[in-house]
Protein backbone atom coordinates (compact mmCIF):
# COMPACT_ATOMS: atom_id res chain seq x y z
CA UNK A 1 0.00 0.00 0.00
CA UNK A 2 1.34 3.38 -0.92
CA UNK A 3 1.28 6.20 1.59
CA UNK A 4 -1.82 8.37 1.76
CA UNK A 5 -1.11 12.09 1.53
CA UNK A 6 -4.69 13.39 1.51
CA UNK A 7 -7.73 11.63 2.86
CA UNK A 8 -11.25 13.02 2.74
CA UNK A 9 -14.25 11.40 4.37
CA UNK A 10 -17.72 12.75 3.83
CA UNK A 11 -16.29 16.21 3.19
CA UNK A 12 -19.19 18.65 2.78
CA UNK A 13 -19.57 22.39 2.39
CA UNK A 14 -22.93 24.12 2.53
CA UNK A 15 -23.06 27.87 1.94
CA UNK A 16 -25.81 29.98 3.50
CA UNK A 17 -27.47 26.88 4.97
CA UNK A 18 -28.90 25.62 1.69
CA UNK A 19 -26.38 25.89 -1.15
CA UNK A 20 -24.59 22.54 -1.21
CA UNK A 21 -21.26 23.17 -2.94
CA UNK A 22 -19.54 19.93 -1.96
CA UNK A 23 -21.67 16.95 -1.02
CA UNK A 24 -20.09 14.19 1.09
CA UNK A 25 -17.04 13.47 -1.03
CA UNK A 26 -14.64 10.66 -0.19
CA UNK A 27 -11.26 10.26 -1.82
CA UNK A 28 -7.62 9.70 -1.05
CA UNK A 29 -4.49 10.95 -2.76
CA UNK A 30 -1.42 8.72 -2.72
CA UNK A 31 2.18 9.79 -2.35
CA UNK A 32 3.82 10.95 -5.56
CA UNK A 33 0.74 11.02 -7.75
CA UNK A 34 -1.01 13.81 -9.62
CA UNK A 35 -4.64 13.66 -8.58
CA UNK A 36 -7.14 15.73 -10.51
CA UNK A 37 -10.64 16.99 -9.90
CA UNK A 38 -12.40 17.32 -13.25
CA UNK A 39 -15.70 19.09 -13.62
CA UNK A 40 -17.43 22.17 -14.95
CA UNK A 41 -17.66 25.59 -13.37
CA UNK A 42 -19.60 25.43 -10.10
CA UNK A 43 -19.13 21.70 -9.61
CA UNK A 44 -17.40 22.24 -6.26
CA UNK A 45 -13.75 21.87 -7.29
CA UNK A 46 -12.48 25.16 -5.89
CA UNK A 47 -14.59 24.77 -2.75
CA UNK A 48 -12.98 21.37 -2.14
CA UNK A 49 -9.47 22.73 -2.67
CA UNK A 50 -10.23 25.69 -0.40
CA UNK A 51 -11.25 23.33 2.38
CA UNK A 52 -8.09 21.25 1.93
CA UNK A 53 -5.87 24.34 2.03
CA UNK A 54 -7.68 25.44 5.24
CA UNK A 55 -9.22 28.70 4.03
CA UNK A 56 -12.76 27.31 4.25
CA UNK A 57 -14.13 25.27 7.11
CA UNK A 58 -16.02 22.11 6.16
CA UNK A 59 -19.67 22.06 7.19
CA UNK A 60 -19.51 18.32 7.71
CA UNK A 61 -17.06 15.47 7.36
CA UNK A 62 -13.32 15.59 7.75
CA UNK A 63 -10.11 15.51 5.81
CA UNK A 64 -6.45 15.22 6.57
CA UNK A 65 -3.38 16.39 4.72
CA UNK A 66 -0.17 14.52 5.61
CA UNK A 67 -1.93 13.25 8.68
CA UNK A 68 -2.93 16.70 9.96
CA UNK A 69 -6.63 17.37 10.40
CA UNK A 70 -7.62 20.33 8.21
CA UNK A 71 -9.91 21.79 10.89
CA UNK A 72 -8.09 21.05 14.12
CA UNK A 73 -4.47 21.32 12.97
CA UNK A 74 -4.88 23.91 10.26
CA UNK A 75 -1.62 25.69 10.98
CA UNK A 76 0.34 22.46 10.66
CA UNK A 77 -1.35 21.84 7.31
CA UNK A 78 -0.48 25.35 6.14
CA UNK A 79 3.20 24.78 6.91
CA UNK A 80 3.56 21.69 4.73
CA UNK A 81 1.45 22.57 1.70
CA UNK A 82 2.04 24.80 -1.29
CA UNK A 83 -0.79 26.56 -3.07
CA UNK A 84 -1.01 27.83 -6.63
CA UNK A 85 -4.30 29.69 -6.82
CA UNK A 86 -6.55 30.09 -9.82
CA UNK A 87 -5.96 33.85 -9.94
CA UNK A 88 -2.73 35.64 -10.63
CA UNK A 89 -2.08 36.80 -7.10
CA UNK A 90 1.43 38.14 -7.54
CA UNK A 91 1.64 41.84 -6.77
CA UNK A 92 1.95 43.72 -10.03
CA UNK A 93 3.84 46.61 -8.46
CA UNK A 94 6.57 44.34 -7.15
CA UNK A 95 9.26 42.44 -9.04
CA UNK A 96 9.25 38.66 -9.46
CA UNK A 97 11.93 38.24 -6.81
CA UNK A 98 10.17 40.58 -4.36
CA UNK A 99 6.99 38.57 -4.79
CA UNK A 100 8.75 35.29 -4.04
CA UNK A 101 10.46 36.79 -0.99
CA UNK A 102 7.09 38.10 0.19
CA UNK A 103 5.74 34.54 0.01
CA UNK A 104 8.81 33.33 1.90
CA UNK A 105 8.09 35.86 4.66
CA UNK A 106 4.58 34.43 5.01
CA UNK A 107 6.23 31.18 6.10
CA UNK A 108 8.79 32.94 8.27
CA UNK A 109 11.68 31.60 6.21
CA UNK A 110 14.89 33.48 7.17
CA UNK A 111 15.89 35.96 4.50
CA UNK A 112 19.20 34.28 3.62
CA UNK A 113 17.61 30.85 3.09
CA UNK A 114 14.72 32.48 1.23
CA UNK A 115 17.08 34.20 -1.22
CA UNK A 116 18.85 30.94 -2.09
CA UNK A 117 15.55 29.14 -2.54
CA UNK A 118 14.08 31.96 -4.59
CA UNK A 119 17.02 31.68 -7.01
CA UNK A 120 16.44 27.94 -7.25
CA UNK A 121 12.72 28.34 -7.89
CA UNK A 122 13.26 31.10 -10.45
CA UNK A 123 15.64 28.77 -12.27
CA UNK A 124 13.12 25.94 -12.13
CA UNK A 125 10.39 28.02 -13.76
CA UNK A 126 12.91 29.76 -16.06
CA UNK A 127 12.29 33.28 -14.86
CA UNK A 128 15.81 34.04 -13.60
CA UNK A 129 16.48 36.71 -16.23
CA UNK A 130 13.20 38.46 -15.40
CA UNK A 131 13.57 38.38 -11.62
CA UNK A 132 14.04 42.14 -11.25
CA UNK A 133 11.26 43.05 -13.66
CA UNK A 134 7.91 44.23 -12.32
CA UNK A 135 5.17 41.64 -12.64
CA UNK A 136 2.92 44.03 -14.57
CA UNK A 137 5.17 43.48 -17.60
CA UNK A 138 4.72 39.67 -17.45
CA UNK A 139 2.67 37.54 -19.84
CA UNK A 140 0.04 35.12 -18.58
CA UNK A 141 2.40 32.17 -18.85
CA UNK A 142 5.13 33.96 -16.92
CA UNK A 143 2.68 34.95 -14.19
CA UNK A 144 1.52 31.36 -13.89
CA UNK A 145 5.13 30.19 -13.53
CA UNK A 146 5.75 32.86 -10.91
CA UNK A 147 2.73 31.60 -8.95
CA UNK A 148 4.24 28.13 -9.17
CA UNK A 149 7.58 29.41 -7.81
CA UNK A 150 5.77 31.18 -4.94
CA UNK A 151 3.84 28.01 -4.10
CA UNK A 152 7.08 26.03 -3.85
CA UNK A 153 9.04 28.42 -1.61
CA UNK A 154 8.33 26.49 1.61
CA UNK A 155 9.35 23.17 -0.03
CA UNK A 156 5.85 21.71 0.32
CA UNK A 157 5.26 17.97 0.43
CA UNK A 158 2.04 18.43 -1.48
CA UNK A 159 1.17 21.15 -3.95
CA UNK A 160 -2.39 22.30 -4.66
CA UNK A 161 -3.06 23.74 -8.10
CA UNK A 162 -6.43 25.32 -8.83
CA UNK A 163 -7.03 25.45 -12.57
CA UNK A 164 -3.30 25.76 -13.34
CA UNK A 165 -3.73 26.73 -16.99
CA UNK A 166 -6.93 28.76 -16.90
CA UNK A 167 -6.89 31.39 -19.62
CA UNK A 168 -3.57 30.30 -21.16
CA UNK A 169 -3.11 29.61 -24.88
CA UNK A 170 -2.44 26.07 -26.08
CA UNK A 171 1.35 26.38 -26.32
CA UNK A 172 1.76 28.03 -22.93
CA UNK A 173 -0.53 25.42 -21.47
CA UNK A 174 1.65 22.58 -22.76
CA UNK A 175 4.75 24.33 -21.37
CA UNK A 176 3.07 24.69 -17.97
CA UNK A 177 2.24 20.99 -17.98
CA UNK A 178 5.95 20.26 -18.37
CA UNK A 179 6.79 22.26 -15.23
CA UNK A 180 4.11 20.37 -13.34
CA UNK A 181 5.39 17.00 -14.55
CA UNK A 182 8.91 18.01 -13.56
CA UNK A 183 7.75 18.56 -9.98
CA UNK A 184 6.36 15.07 -9.85
CA UNK A 185 9.28 13.34 -11.55
CA UNK A 186 12.28 15.33 -10.27
CA UNK A 187 11.00 16.26 -6.82
CA UNK A 188 8.70 13.32 -6.11
CA UNK A 189 6.03 15.80 -5.12
CA UNK A 190 2.37 14.91 -4.66
CA UNK A 191 0.02 17.18 -6.58
CA UNK A 192 -3.68 17.86 -6.20
CA UNK A 193 -5.19 19.83 -9.04
CA UNK A 194 -8.53 20.93 -10.36
CA UNK A 195 -9.31 21.47 -13.99
CA UNK A 196 -12.17 21.78 -16.38
CA UNK A 197 -9.96 20.95 -19.37
CA UNK A 198 -10.38 17.31 -20.40
CA UNK A 199 -7.05 17.26 -22.23
CA UNK A 200 -5.31 18.57 -19.15
CA UNK A 201 -6.73 15.89 -16.89
CA UNK A 202 -5.88 13.29 -19.51
CA UNK A 203 -2.33 14.52 -20.08
CA UNK A 204 -1.31 15.19 -16.47
CA UNK A 205 -3.29 13.22 -13.96
CA UNK A 206 -2.46 9.76 -12.69
CA UNK A 207 -5.97 9.58 -11.32
CA UNK A 208 -9.01 11.69 -12.01
CA UNK A 209 -12.13 12.24 -9.94
CA UNK A 210 -15.04 13.48 -12.01
CA UNK A 211 -17.11 15.86 -9.94
CA UNK A 212 -20.57 17.13 -10.76
CA UNK A 213 -22.97 19.07 -8.53
CA UNK A 214 -20.64 18.63 -5.58
CA UNK A 215 -20.48 14.85 -5.85
CA UNK A 216 -17.72 12.61 -7.10
CA UNK A 217 -19.31 10.45 -9.78
CA UNK A 218 -16.31 8.29 -10.62
CA UNK A 219 -12.60 8.04 -9.73
CA UNK A 220 -9.77 6.30 -11.56
CA UNK A 221 -6.85 6.59 -13.94
CA UNK A 222 -7.96 8.30 -17.18
CA UNK A 223 -7.13 5.18 -19.24
CA UNK A 224 -9.21 2.93 -17.02
CA UNK A 225 -12.14 5.33 -17.10
CA UNK A 226 -12.05 5.41 -20.87
CA UNK A 227 -11.81 1.62 -21.10
CA UNK A 228 -14.66 1.22 -18.65
CA UNK A 229 -16.96 2.63 -21.31
CA UNK A 230 -16.60 -0.67 -23.18
CA UNK A 231 -14.45 0.28 -26.11
CA UNK A 232 -14.47 2.64 -29.06
CA UNK A 233 -17.32 4.49 -30.68
CA UNK A 234 -18.17 3.69 -34.31
CA UNK A 235 -20.64 5.96 -36.02
CA UNK A 236 -21.99 4.88 -39.40
CA UNK A 237 -24.84 5.49 -41.79
CA UNK A 238 -26.28 3.39 -44.64
CA UNK A 239 -27.93 4.45 -47.88
CA UNK A 240 -31.00 2.24 -47.40
CA UNK A 241 -33.81 3.36 -45.13
CA UNK A 242 -33.98 0.23 -42.99
CA UNK A 243 -33.26 -0.44 -39.31
CA UNK A 244 -30.16 -2.65 -39.19
CA UNK A 245 -29.51 -2.40 -35.42
CA UNK A 246 -30.06 -6.10 -34.85
CA UNK A 247 -27.78 -7.05 -37.68
CA UNK A 248 -24.96 -4.86 -36.31
CA UNK A 249 -25.36 -6.03 -32.75
CA UNK A 250 -24.77 -9.65 -33.84
CA UNK A 251 -21.24 -8.78 -34.99
CA UNK A 252 -18.56 -10.00 -32.57
CA UNK A 253 -17.20 -7.40 -30.05
CA UNK A 254 -20.11 -5.01 -30.60
CA UNK A 255 -21.40 -3.99 -27.18
CA UNK A 256 -24.24 -1.61 -27.89
CA UNK A 257 -26.03 -0.08 -30.87
CA UNK A 258 -28.11 3.08 -30.79
CA UNK A 259 -29.90 4.64 -33.74
CA UNK A 260 -29.63 8.42 -33.59
CA UNK A 261 -30.72 10.84 -36.33
CA UNK A 262 -30.47 8.27 -39.09
CA UNK A 263 -27.02 7.03 -38.13
CA UNK A 264 -25.88 4.30 -35.78
CA UNK A 265 -23.75 4.92 -32.71
CA UNK A 266 -22.00 1.67 -31.98
CA UNK A 267 -19.90 0.87 -28.92
CA UNK A 268 -17.33 -1.72 -29.88
CA UNK A 269 -14.21 -3.20 -28.36
CA UNK A 270 -11.07 -2.91 -30.49
CA UNK A 271 -12.86 -0.58 -32.88
CA UNK A 272 -10.25 -0.69 -35.65
CA UNK A 273 -10.54 -4.50 -35.88
CA UNK A 274 -14.30 -4.72 -35.40
CA UNK A 275 -15.30 -2.02 -37.90
CA UNK A 276 -14.32 -4.02 -41.03
CA UNK A 277 -16.48 -6.91 -39.76
CA UNK A 278 -19.46 -4.59 -39.35
CA UNK A 279 -19.05 -3.26 -42.89
CA UNK A 280 -18.68 -6.80 -44.22
CA UNK A 281 -21.86 -7.97 -42.44
CA UNK A 282 -23.82 -5.06 -43.89
CA UNK A 283 -22.41 -5.52 -47.41
CA UNK A 284 -23.30 -9.23 -47.38
CA UNK A 285 -26.97 -8.29 -46.82
CA UNK A 286 -26.76 -5.80 -49.68
CA UNK A 287 -26.56 -2.57 -47.67
CA UNK A 288 -24.17 0.24 -48.62
CA UNK A 289 -22.28 2.12 -45.93
CA UNK A 290 -22.50 5.81 -46.82
CA UNK A 291 -20.50 7.33 -43.97
CA UNK A 292 -18.27 6.07 -41.20
CA UNK A 293 -16.23 7.39 -38.32
CA UNK A 294 -14.25 5.72 -35.56
CA UNK A 295 -13.38 7.51 -32.32
CA UNK A 296 -11.51 6.35 -29.30
CA UNK A 297 -13.36 7.40 -26.17
CA UNK A 298 -12.08 10.59 -24.53
CA UNK A 299 -12.74 11.81 -21.02
CA UNK A 300 -15.59 13.77 -22.55
CA UNK A 301 -17.31 10.46 -23.33
CA UNK A 302 -16.59 9.34 -19.80
CA UNK A 303 -18.04 12.57 -18.50
CA UNK A 304 -21.08 12.20 -20.75
CA UNK A 305 -21.57 8.65 -19.59
CA UNK A 306 -21.56 9.50 -15.88
CA UNK A 307 -23.24 12.92 -15.80
CA UNK A 308 -25.47 12.74 -18.85
CA UNK A 309 -24.09 15.94 -20.32
CA UNK A 310 -21.07 17.11 -22.21
CA UNK A 311 -18.38 18.96 -20.30
CA UNK A 312 -17.65 21.14 -23.32
CA UNK A 313 -21.05 22.82 -22.95
CA UNK A 314 -20.27 23.76 -19.39
CA UNK A 315 -16.92 25.14 -20.50
CA UNK A 316 -18.36 28.03 -22.49
CA UNK A 317 -19.54 29.98 -19.47
CA UNK A 318 -16.19 29.48 -17.81
CA UNK A 319 -14.30 31.09 -20.67
CA UNK A 320 -16.58 34.11 -20.46
CA UNK A 321 -15.89 34.27 -16.73
CA UNK A 322 -12.14 34.24 -17.29
CA UNK A 323 -12.39 36.97 -19.90
CA UNK A 324 -14.38 39.09 -17.47
CA UNK A 325 -11.76 38.68 -14.80
CA UNK A 326 -8.99 39.71 -17.17
CA UNK A 327 -10.94 42.84 -18.03
CA UNK A 328 -11.23 43.67 -14.35
CA UNK A 329 -7.51 43.24 -13.84
CA UNK A 330 -6.74 45.58 -16.71
CA UNK A 331 -9.17 48.15 -15.35
CA UNK A 332 -7.24 48.19 -12.11
CA UNK A 333 -4.00 49.37 -13.70
Amino acid at each position, binding site marked *: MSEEIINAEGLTKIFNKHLVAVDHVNFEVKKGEIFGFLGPNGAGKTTTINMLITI*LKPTEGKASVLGFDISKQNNSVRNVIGVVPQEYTADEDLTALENILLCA*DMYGIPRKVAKDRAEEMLKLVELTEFKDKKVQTFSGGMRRRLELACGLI*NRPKVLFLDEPTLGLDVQTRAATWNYIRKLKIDYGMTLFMTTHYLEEADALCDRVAIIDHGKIVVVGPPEDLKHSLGGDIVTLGIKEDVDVSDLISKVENVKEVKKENGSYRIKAEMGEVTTPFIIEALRRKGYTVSKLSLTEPTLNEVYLEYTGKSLRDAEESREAFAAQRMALRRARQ
Partner: protein
Amino acid sequence: MSESNGNSKSKLHGLWALTNRELKKWYKAPVIFLLSIIQPILWMGLLGKAMNIGAIFSGTSIPLPQLSPALTPVQLQQLGAYFGQLQSTIMQGAFNTTDYFSFMAVGMIAFTALFTTMFSGMSVVWDRRLGFLDKVLSTPVSRAVIIFSKVLSATLRSMFQAGLIIVIAVAFGLQFGATFNPLNVLGVFAILFLVCVGLSSIFIAITIRSTRIETPMAVVNLINLPLMFASNAFFPTKFMPDWLQTIAKFNPLTYTTDAVRQLLIFSTDWGQLATDFAFVGVFAVIAASIGIVLSWRFLSK
Protein backbone atom coordinates in the same frame (compact mmCIF):
# COMPACT_ATOMS: atom_id res chain seq x y z
CA MET B 1 -1.63 39.39 18.58
CA SER B 2 -1.49 35.80 19.62
CA GLU B 3 2.00 34.47 19.45
CA SER B 4 2.47 30.84 20.14
CA ASN B 5 5.78 29.57 21.40
CA GLY B 6 8.58 28.81 18.99
CA ASN B 7 7.46 30.67 15.90
CA SER B 8 6.77 34.13 17.24
CA LYS B 9 9.66 35.40 15.14
CA SER B 10 8.07 34.14 11.96
CA LYS B 11 4.79 35.83 12.84
CA LEU B 12 6.36 39.23 13.29
CA HIS B 13 8.21 38.65 10.06
CA GLY B 14 4.95 38.22 8.22
CA LEU B 15 3.59 41.41 9.76
CA TRP B 16 6.39 43.58 8.45
CA ALA B 17 6.39 41.87 5.03
CA LEU B 18 2.67 42.51 4.56
CA THR B 19 2.87 46.06 5.90
CA ASN B 20 5.81 46.87 3.69
CA ARG B 21 3.97 45.46 0.68
CA GLU B 22 1.27 48.08 1.23
CA LEU B 23 3.74 50.86 1.85
CA LYS B 24 5.81 49.99 -1.23
CA LYS B 25 2.77 50.59 -3.41
CA TRP B 26 2.84 54.10 -2.06
CA TYR B 27 6.46 55.14 -1.79
CA LYS B 28 7.64 53.24 -4.85
CA ALA B 29 5.04 54.90 -7.06
CA PRO B 30 6.39 58.44 -7.60
CA VAL B 31 3.10 59.87 -8.84
CA ILE B 32 1.01 58.62 -5.92
CA PHE B 33 3.71 59.69 -3.47
CA LEU B 34 3.92 63.16 -4.97
CA LEU B 35 0.14 63.56 -4.99
CA SER B 36 -0.08 62.56 -1.35
CA ILE B 37 2.38 65.38 -0.59
CA ILE B 38 0.67 67.96 -2.81
CA GLN B 39 -2.82 67.20 -1.49
CA PRO B 40 -2.34 68.62 2.05
CA ILE B 41 -0.55 71.68 0.63
CA LEU B 42 -3.53 72.39 -1.61
CA TRP B 43 -6.03 71.90 1.18
CA MET B 44 -4.14 74.07 3.56
CA GLY B 45 -3.62 76.77 0.98
CA LEU B 46 -7.28 76.77 0.04
CA LEU B 47 -8.98 76.28 3.38
CA GLY B 48 -6.48 77.97 5.64
CA LYS B 49 -5.49 80.95 3.61
CA ALA B 50 -8.70 81.47 1.65
CA MET B 51 -10.90 81.39 4.75
CA ASN B 52 -9.14 84.25 6.52
CA ILE B 53 -11.64 84.47 9.36
CA GLY B 54 -9.46 86.79 11.44
CA ALA B 55 -9.63 89.53 8.79
CA ILE B 56 -13.43 89.70 9.07
CA PHE B 57 -13.23 91.27 12.50
CA SER B 58 -10.34 93.63 11.88
CA GLY B 59 -10.84 97.41 12.03
CA THR B 60 -9.87 97.83 8.38
CA SER B 61 -12.54 95.47 7.12
CA ILE B 62 -15.39 97.32 8.79
CA PRO B 63 -16.45 100.55 6.92
CA LEU B 64 -16.47 102.73 10.07
CA PRO B 65 -16.86 106.20 8.38
CA GLN B 66 -20.10 105.09 6.64
CA LEU B 67 -21.45 103.42 9.79
CA SER B 68 -20.83 106.41 12.05
CA PRO B 69 -20.60 109.64 10.02
CA ALA B 70 -20.88 111.78 13.18
CA LEU B 71 -17.48 110.76 14.49
CA THR B 72 -14.31 112.76 14.03
CA PRO B 73 -11.28 111.23 12.27
CA VAL B 74 -9.48 110.89 15.63
CA GLN B 75 -12.44 109.08 17.14
CA LEU B 76 -12.64 106.84 14.07
CA GLN B 77 -8.96 105.98 14.44
CA GLN B 78 -9.53 105.14 18.12
CA LEU B 79 -12.55 103.04 17.22
CA GLY B 80 -10.48 101.27 14.55
CA ALA B 81 -7.81 100.45 17.11
CA TYR B 82 -10.54 99.27 19.48
CA PHE B 83 -11.91 96.91 16.84
CA GLY B 84 -8.39 95.67 16.26
CA GLN B 85 -8.14 94.75 19.96
CA LEU B 86 -11.64 93.31 19.82
CA GLN B 87 -10.60 91.08 16.94
CA SER B 88 -7.77 89.56 18.97
CA THR B 89 -10.14 89.03 21.88
CA ILE B 90 -12.83 87.47 19.66
CA MET B 91 -10.34 85.18 17.95
CA GLN B 92 -8.74 84.22 21.24
CA GLY B 93 -12.15 83.52 22.73
CA ALA B 94 -13.46 81.55 19.77
CA PHE B 95 -10.40 79.69 18.55
CA ASN B 96 -8.10 79.92 21.58
CA THR B 97 -5.50 81.48 19.27
CA THR B 98 -5.43 84.72 17.35
CA ASP B 99 -4.46 82.98 14.13
CA TYR B 100 -7.18 81.01 12.31
CA PHE B 101 -4.62 79.49 9.95
CA SER B 102 -2.82 77.81 12.86
CA PHE B 103 -6.17 76.57 14.20
CA MET B 104 -7.21 75.13 10.88
CA ALA B 105 -3.81 73.68 9.88
CA VAL B 106 -4.02 71.41 12.91
CA GLY B 107 -7.52 70.39 11.82
CA MET B 108 -5.94 69.33 8.55
CA ILE B 109 -3.86 66.77 10.41
CA ALA B 110 -6.99 64.99 11.64
CA PHE B 111 -8.52 65.39 8.19
CA THR B 112 -5.56 63.65 6.57
CA ALA B 113 -5.58 60.88 9.16
CA LEU B 114 -9.26 60.25 8.44
CA PHE B 115 -8.86 60.14 4.66
CA THR B 116 -5.72 58.05 4.56
CA THR B 117 -7.09 55.41 6.92
CA MET B 118 -10.39 55.30 5.08
CA PHE B 119 -8.87 54.46 1.77
CA SER B 120 -6.59 51.89 3.32
CA GLY B 121 -9.65 49.70 3.73
CA MET B 122 -10.08 49.66 -0.02
CA SER B 123 -6.94 47.59 -0.49
CA VAL B 124 -8.64 44.75 1.40
CA VAL B 125 -11.28 44.58 -1.31
CA TRP B 126 -8.61 44.37 -4.00
CA ASP B 127 -6.74 41.68 -2.13
CA ARG B 128 -9.93 39.68 -1.95
CA ARG B 129 -10.94 40.16 -5.53
CA LEU B 130 -7.53 39.33 -6.92
CA GLY B 131 -7.12 36.24 -4.77
CA PHE B 132 -4.17 37.55 -2.77
CA LEU B 133 -6.10 37.34 0.48
CA ASP B 134 -6.90 33.66 -0.09
CA LYS B 135 -3.27 32.94 -0.87
CA VAL B 136 -2.10 34.57 2.34
CA LEU B 137 -4.80 32.71 4.27
CA SER B 138 -3.37 29.41 3.05
CA THR B 139 -0.01 30.23 4.65
CA PRO B 140 0.81 29.94 8.36
CA VAL B 141 0.58 33.72 8.89
CA SER B 142 -1.62 34.57 11.87
CA ARG B 143 -5.01 35.93 10.87
CA ALA B 144 -4.51 38.84 13.25
CA VAL B 145 -1.26 39.71 11.48
CA ILE B 146 -3.07 39.95 8.15
CA ILE B 147 -5.51 42.51 9.56
CA PHE B 148 -2.96 44.35 11.63
CA SER B 149 -0.63 44.79 8.65
CA LYS B 150 -3.39 46.80 6.99
CA VAL B 151 -3.93 48.87 10.12
CA LEU B 152 -0.22 49.46 10.55
CA SER B 153 0.44 50.50 6.96
CA ALA B 154 -2.44 53.00 7.06
CA THR B 155 -1.20 54.33 10.39
CA LEU B 156 2.39 54.76 9.23
CA ARG B 157 1.23 56.49 6.08
CA SER B 158 -1.03 58.88 7.99
CA MET B 159 1.70 59.69 10.45
CA PHE B 160 4.14 60.47 7.67
CA GLN B 161 1.62 62.77 6.02
CA ALA B 162 0.75 64.43 9.31
CA GLY B 163 4.43 65.13 9.90
CA LEU B 164 4.60 66.65 6.46
CA ILE B 165 1.61 68.87 7.20
CA ILE B 166 3.27 70.21 10.33
CA VAL B 167 6.39 71.09 8.32
CA ILE B 168 4.35 72.74 5.56
CA ALA B 169 2.15 74.58 8.06
CA VAL B 170 5.22 76.00 9.79
CA ALA B 171 6.49 77.17 6.43
CA PHE B 172 3.11 78.81 5.77
CA GLY B 173 3.22 80.66 9.09
CA LEU B 174 1.89 78.36 11.80
CA GLN B 175 2.27 80.07 15.18
CA PHE B 176 3.38 77.75 17.96
CA GLY B 177 1.81 78.19 21.39
CA ALA B 178 3.64 79.84 24.27
CA THR B 179 4.38 76.52 25.96
CA PHE B 180 5.55 74.72 22.80
CA ASN B 181 8.45 72.36 23.21
CA PRO B 182 9.90 70.35 20.26
CA LEU B 183 9.24 67.17 22.24
CA ASN B 184 5.50 67.89 21.94
CA VAL B 185 5.75 66.62 18.35
CA LEU B 186 6.23 63.14 19.79
CA GLY B 187 2.93 63.57 21.61
CA VAL B 188 1.30 64.54 18.30
CA PHE B 189 2.52 61.31 16.73
CA ALA B 190 1.34 59.33 19.73
CA ILE B 191 -2.24 60.62 19.51
CA LEU B 192 -2.22 60.16 15.73
CA PHE B 193 -1.05 56.58 16.13
CA LEU B 194 -3.97 55.87 18.45
CA VAL B 195 -6.64 57.49 16.30
CA CYS B 196 -5.34 55.90 13.07
CA VAL B 197 -5.30 52.43 14.62
CA GLY B 198 -8.90 52.94 15.72
CA LEU B 199 -10.16 54.43 12.47
CA SER B 200 -8.48 51.95 10.14
CA SER B 201 -9.71 49.00 12.24
CA ILE B 202 -13.26 50.24 11.74
CA PHE B 203 -12.85 50.81 8.02
CA ILE B 204 -11.24 47.41 7.51
CA ALA B 205 -14.06 45.72 9.40
CA ILE B 206 -16.50 47.51 7.08
CA THR B 207 -14.67 46.61 3.88
CA ILE B 208 -13.50 43.08 4.60
CA ARG B 209 -16.91 41.62 3.82
CA SER B 210 -17.52 43.40 0.57
CA THR B 211 -16.50 41.93 -2.74
CA ARG B 212 -17.34 45.09 -4.66
CA ILE B 213 -15.25 48.24 -4.38
CA GLU B 214 -18.40 50.38 -4.70
CA THR B 215 -19.89 49.37 -1.34
CA PRO B 216 -17.10 50.62 0.93
CA MET B 217 -16.69 53.67 -1.32
CA ALA B 218 -20.31 54.58 -0.70
CA VAL B 219 -19.98 54.04 3.05
CA VAL B 220 -16.82 56.12 3.18
CA ASN B 221 -18.32 58.94 1.15
CA LEU B 222 -21.35 58.94 3.40
CA ILE B 223 -19.45 59.31 6.64
CA ASN B 224 -16.23 61.15 5.90
CA LEU B 225 -17.35 64.77 5.59
CA PRO B 226 -20.06 64.58 8.30
CA LEU B 227 -17.47 63.07 10.64
CA MET B 228 -15.11 65.87 9.73
CA PHE B 229 -17.53 68.75 10.23
CA ALA B 230 -19.12 67.29 13.34
CA SER B 231 -15.82 67.89 15.08
CA ASN B 232 -13.71 70.86 16.07
CA ALA B 233 -11.32 70.37 13.13
CA PHE B 234 -12.30 73.59 11.33
CA PHE B 235 -14.61 75.35 13.75
CA PRO B 236 -14.97 75.35 17.54
CA THR B 237 -17.76 73.10 18.76
CA LYS B 238 -18.97 75.60 21.38
CA PHE B 239 -20.78 77.66 18.69
CA MET B 240 -22.52 74.59 17.26
CA PRO B 241 -26.15 73.71 18.02
CA ASP B 242 -26.60 71.35 20.97
CA TRP B 243 -27.35 68.23 18.94
CA LEU B 244 -24.20 68.75 16.88
CA GLN B 245 -22.17 69.39 20.01
CA THR B 246 -23.36 66.06 21.36
CA ILE B 247 -22.16 64.28 18.23
CA ALA B 248 -18.87 66.16 18.33
CA LYS B 249 -18.46 65.16 21.97
CA PHE B 250 -18.31 61.50 20.89
CA ASN B 251 -16.27 62.09 17.78
CA PRO B 252 -12.69 60.90 18.27
CA LEU B 253 -11.52 63.47 15.75
CA THR B 254 -12.55 66.24 18.18
CA TYR B 255 -10.24 64.87 20.85
CA THR B 256 -7.43 64.18 18.40
CA THR B 257 -7.57 67.70 17.03
CA ASP B 258 -7.77 69.20 20.48
CA ALA B 259 -4.78 67.21 21.67
CA VAL B 260 -2.70 68.31 18.69
CA ARG B 261 -3.74 71.94 19.33
CA GLN B 262 -2.87 71.69 23.00
CA LEU B 263 0.54 70.38 22.03
CA LEU B 264 1.33 72.75 19.17
CA ILE B 265 -0.55 76.05 19.22
CA PHE B 266 -2.30 76.50 22.57
CA SER B 267 -0.85 77.11 25.97
CA THR B 268 -1.06 73.49 26.98
CA ASP B 269 -3.86 72.58 29.37
CA TRP B 270 -2.49 69.32 30.75
CA GLY B 271 -5.78 68.21 32.24
CA GLN B 272 -7.57 68.61 28.91
CA LEU B 273 -4.70 66.87 27.12
CA ALA B 274 -4.99 63.90 29.48
CA THR B 275 -8.74 63.69 28.77
CA ASP B 276 -8.03 63.78 25.02
CA PHE B 277 -5.50 60.97 25.27
CA ALA B 278 -7.79 58.91 27.48
CA PHE B 279 -10.73 59.25 25.09
CA VAL B 280 -8.74 58.50 21.93
CA GLY B 281 -6.92 55.67 23.68
CA VAL B 282 -10.17 54.02 24.73
CA PHE B 283 -11.56 54.55 21.22
CA ALA B 284 -8.48 52.89 19.67
CA VAL B 285 -8.66 49.88 21.97
CA ILE B 286 -12.40 49.35 21.46
CA ALA B 287 -12.33 49.93 17.70
CA ALA B 288 -9.29 47.73 17.18
CA SER B 289 -10.84 44.94 19.26
CA ILE B 290 -14.13 45.11 17.38
CA GLY B 291 -12.37 45.38 14.02
CA ILE B 292 -10.02 42.52 14.69
CA VAL B 293 -12.70 40.24 16.16
CA LEU B 294 -15.08 40.86 13.24
CA SER B 295 -12.37 40.45 10.62
CA TRP B 296 -11.00 37.38 12.33
CA ARG B 297 -14.40 35.72 12.36
CA PHE B 298 -14.81 36.56 8.73
CA LEU B 299 -11.35 35.32 7.73
CA SER B 300 -11.86 31.94 9.43
CA LYS B 301 -15.21 31.26 7.81
